[in-house]
């Protein structure tokens, strides 16, 4: 049995519509906030993990900014799932004794810079002449096929966005808190059929950071520790044109690996955080992670995943309503940790003990799952 690893600190910074800071500033600020929760200092940090579309070598940039020369460094980029994958990588590095205190961070200032998703994405020549919108057309192609194969409805997609706003209304830091209805979503302008404007995530600034260490060291710290019980990662394609099955994703493999290591299953999860850049992602994520039979994600959403429901999903409001500075993985983790610590106020899930976090990256390409315990 590998020694345990825990998340001992989390921090966020500049999750907003306008910032005067740069992306490296924000990664560093979030890191200092996360460290401040732990009582640890920069001198304790010997593992650096980072991702950001703003930097070619994000962990190297972050370490330079902080003034750290680490023993372990990792800039793995599998899109929005990266930070969730970093949790697995950091846990293994700590278990192997390669480092003792790991920082993971992400930041982007895409809202202030361009108002659009900032991405270093490479274009596949076999998609280039045809003009799919990046990334929404890829998700639209999957949504269309999912609706055809399983009868998922336009209203079920809309309900994902409606539920996200219900959670956001309970989150004082969420950037879109006004309620919306299914009718609002279905009446919003089409962008790439069948997806409409209100099926899409926000475009904001922001950054986040996590601090991980061994269970043993965590016990000597003052703050609460959230244990990492299991992690998994996978990818099935890079570009949507190369996706093999347009209705099922490599979340199946990533989730299975995490459940197996944790010795737990979907029924054991009290809180679920799934990357929701577009409404279809929550539905497919719920299916592929085993929370319902394949094809019934839409029905599960209809049954209720909002505040007060028996099955709380995306409790911060998610990328659809909380914030979305690109690669949302770190914010899924921050929310899960805060839920497991019982710090979430009006949106707190009572008695939350186990949380599942799933990051999607690229266009249903990169996947990483983490199972956490309070």
């Amino acid at each position, binding site marked *: 049995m590998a020694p345990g690893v825990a998340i001992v600190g989390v921090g966020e910074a500049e999750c907003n519509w306008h910032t005067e800071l740069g992306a490296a500033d924000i990664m560093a600020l979030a890191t200092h906030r996360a460290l401040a929760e732990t009582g640890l200092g920069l001198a304790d940090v010997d593992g650096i993990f980072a991702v950001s579309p703003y930097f070619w070598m994000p962990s190297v940039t972050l370490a330079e900014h902080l003034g750290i020369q680490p023993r372990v460094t990792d800039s793995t980029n599998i899109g929005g799932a990266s930070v969730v994958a970093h949790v697995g990588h950091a846990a293994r590095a700590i278990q192997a004794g390669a480092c003792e205190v790991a920082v993971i961070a992400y930041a982007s200032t895409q809202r202030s810079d361009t108002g*659009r998703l900032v991405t270093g994405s490479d274009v*596949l*020549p*076999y*998609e*280039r*002449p*045809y*003009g*799919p*919108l990046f990334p929404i*057309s890829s998700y*639209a*192609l*999957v949504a*269309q*096929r999912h609706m*055809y194969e399983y009868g998922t409805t336009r209203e079920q997609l809309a309900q994902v966005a409606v539920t996200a706003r219900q959670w956001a209304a309970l989150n004082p830091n969420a950037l879109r808190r006004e309620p919306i209805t299914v009718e609002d979503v279905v009446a919003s*302008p*089409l*962008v*790439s*059929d*069948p*997806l409409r404007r209100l099926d899409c995530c926000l475009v904001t600034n922001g950054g986040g950071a996590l601090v991980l260490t061994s269970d043993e060291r965590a016990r000597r710290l003052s703050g609460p520790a959230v244990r990492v019980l299991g992690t998994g990662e996978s990818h099935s394609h890079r570009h*949507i*044109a*190369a996706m093999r099955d*347009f209705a099922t994703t490599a979340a199946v493999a990533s989730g299975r690996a995490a459940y197996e290591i944790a010795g737990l299953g979907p029924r054991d999860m009290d809180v679920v955080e799934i990357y929701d850049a577009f409404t279809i992602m929550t539905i497919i994520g719920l299916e592929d992670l085993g929370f319902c039979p394949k094809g019934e994600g839409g029905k599960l959403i209809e049954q209720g995943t909002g505040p007060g429901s028996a099955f709380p999903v995306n409790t911060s409001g998610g990328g659809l309503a909380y914030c979305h500075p690109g690669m949302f993985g770190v914010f899924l983790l921050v929310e899960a940790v805060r839920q497991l610590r019982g710090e979430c106020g009006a949106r707190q899930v009572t008695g939350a003990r186990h949380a599942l976090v799933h990051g999607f990256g690229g266009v249903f390409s990169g996947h990483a799952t983490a199972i956490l315990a309070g």
Partner: protein
Amino acid sequence: MSPADERPKPDTRGAGRPYWLSGRDGVLRLPRCTACGGIFWYPRLHCPGCGSAAVEWIATSGKGSVYTFTVVRQSPEPYFAARVPYVVAMVELGDGPRVMANVVACEPERVRIGLPVGVVFERLDDETYVPLFRPEPEGRA
């Protein structure tokens, strides 16, 4: 020509060169692995099914059906912005693999999953013939 007139050109170097040249005589050609028999897309030097480098190019019927599609309603690129709404589809070919292309010569509202389509080509230059698909005439699907 302004950017609004010119369809963005793919990078035609490498393993996919015969794909972009294929339309010269109006025939859609795809790579086939002679080791495992798989016909695959997009073109690569090695078969993604079994890893073999024994790849040949075969002529296909160029016929298939729409596997999934989206109607694009806006674009930051002048060429595409001037053509909204347009259809981006994955077409499942009768010969096996699925390819990405636009469905043309058809109102976007008529496109549905399962729609029978056949290949046509748009010449961008002597090296680049972009495969597109249009609905098959009724009764010939």
